[in-house]
């Protein structure tokens, strides 16, 4: 069940909290009070999702970053983006240190952000995907520990 993280309604804190505990990825870390997931900016376009979710690690210019013998991969010039199925898989399931976003982003948001990175940072792929393509690849939502 997708957690309504980005809707705004009067009852949002309660609804979001209930879902967080039940079904969505771990929104509350052991040491955090974020058991009510904070209201975030609405994210409709792929650029919105990229800005509010991805760029903290992959950087605003899509060039990733180099850490201590490890890195956040770049999207600029990354041949792994040739098949749209790969970024969809990684966003849904996570990869190594990257968390899963299955259940945190909607199918629509995932499709939009995958389309965005495949058409930005010097990428010009033309085979755009739809929410239904994401839905077809989706495993059960993992359960965060609490």
């Amino acid at each position, binding site marked *: 069940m997708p957690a309504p993280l980005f809707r705004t309604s009067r009852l949002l804190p309660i609804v979001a909290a209930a879902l967080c505990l039940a079904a969505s*990825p771990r929104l509350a870390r052991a040491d955090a009070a974020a*058991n*009510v*997931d904070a209201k975030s900016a609405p994210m409709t376009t792929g650029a919105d999702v990229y800005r509010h979710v991805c760029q903290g*690690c992959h950087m605003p210019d899509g060039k990733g970053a*180099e850490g201590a013998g490890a890195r*956040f991969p770049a999207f600029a010039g990354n041949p792994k983006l040739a098949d749209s199925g790969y970024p969809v898989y990684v966003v849904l399931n996570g990869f*190594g*240190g990257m968390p899963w976003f299955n259940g945190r982003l909607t199918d629509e948001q995932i499709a939009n952000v995958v389309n965005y990175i495949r058409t930005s940072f010097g990428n010009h792929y033309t085979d755009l995907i739809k929410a239904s393509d994401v839905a077809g690849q989706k495993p059960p939502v993992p359960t965060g520990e609490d």
Partner: protein
Amino acid sequence: MPEQHPFTPQTRRQLLTRIGVAAGTAAMYQAMTAMGHAAGTDFTSPPTLTGARKGTTVLVLGSGLAGMLAAYEMRKAGYNVRVLEFQNRAGGRNFTLHSGDSFTELGGASQSVKFAPGNYINPGPWRIPYHHQGLLHYCREFGVALEPFVEVNHNSYLHATNAFGGKPQRYRDVMSDFNGYTAEMLSKAVNQHKLDDILHPDEREHVLAAMAGWGTLDSSYRYVKSDRVSQRRGFAKPQGGGIDGAPIPSDLLPRDEIMASGLWNWLSFNMRLEMQTTMFQPVGGMDQIGKAFAKQVKDLITFGCKVSAIHQDDKGVSVTYTDVNHGNRTVEAKADYCVCTIPLSILSQLDVQVSGPMKAAIAAVPYASSVKVGLEFNRRFWEEDDQIYGGISFTDQQMSQISYPSHGYFSKGKAVLLGAYMFGSAAYDFAGMTPEQRIEAVLEQGSKIHPQYRKEFSNGVSWAWSRVPWTLGCCSMWSEQARKTHYKTLCEVDNRVVLAGEHASYIGCWQEGAILSSLDAITRLHKRAIGAA
């Protein structure tokens, strides 16, 4: 006014005293444990590792608490220990930003800490539950001065953007009213015989008495404005002395708004075992713990070692690293055994020679993103204007909370509070901002709780864990599925290599997890090394 109790059962203390007198303290401790009184993490005492073969060498990777503790205990056991550390500082995620510090995050933004001398913020761990006995044991052993950390403050604020017109409410008021209304509703259900199918007649009376006391209900089981209720939630005109000293009781918040507000979430947050009193913090900053550990093992640590590969065979372990302090030369270090405390977010990208299942386990644990913002203000307006001394105000805005300093009460001059501490979507968002944008957003959001923010603000600093080169994230974020499939494998000794750190514990993201993981890992590695396992 003292609250009425319908009956006086034998108290636990009375019972325990009797057991203690009759059977001695060991039996009493056992009884206490059985009754859940002495429960905490599973730390009992530090390991006594005996019989190490002379000359056996151990390489420890990482000088966070897990790594330094492994080095300390294994040297004590007789091993020849060396520690390789990427940074030019020991302590790992245990550290503190002090006045005058500066740093550069991934992406290139640099920040300087412009706090007044003596002021600080803990970007990583910042509070220690009393039952984290492993960590507390070593704090005591290594002489770290601790002081109380105030988690719960009944006079702090709870704030939800869409509740009560956006006006923050005092924790005390929300707690009193939520408990009171809940008790009232439950009493009503009992008195209307709606719970007769589950409540025995005797129990009905006990529940009614409990609800009346817990919720401050009147003789008709109603939660209503009164002097008695105001003894809990505070008066509109406080009790005074002299001729005009009579108090005026306060109005209750409307029940439906309390229930809809979600503010009760933060009441329950503070009920968690991890947040219960007493909590502690080191005097002068969390880094006092890392420094105290480092004092024990500093002669063993080589700084500036960027590990790229960990190989092993039947004879030993070989670790390849770049010596960044000496012209980036490539160095190979060898040892009989290796304790690796490198965060999995990094380790999963290195060339590590371990079994297939272990490799899968290393790659199975994502790291949470987290952001903290420290704000310095010209004066302690939260104390002077709001009578808030330590503790935390919570909000449903992205910043999530304001933690007021648990030290330096009543002092004049500049003071630093934790202006934001977030995980999840808010942390992703803030990690993507520039440091200036983060401060601006936190000032904007914080002003909803404290209108004094803009006027009193002096300077601020932000720390985004996903922009930290040596962790690429904050801490391990296990899913239940990954825990089931990979956890035990992750903790196993893989031939000559064992992993340790908060990620190899059930106390993820806490220092205690690093301590207990390390003790367990070296105990099993020692057994392996002496041929006992």
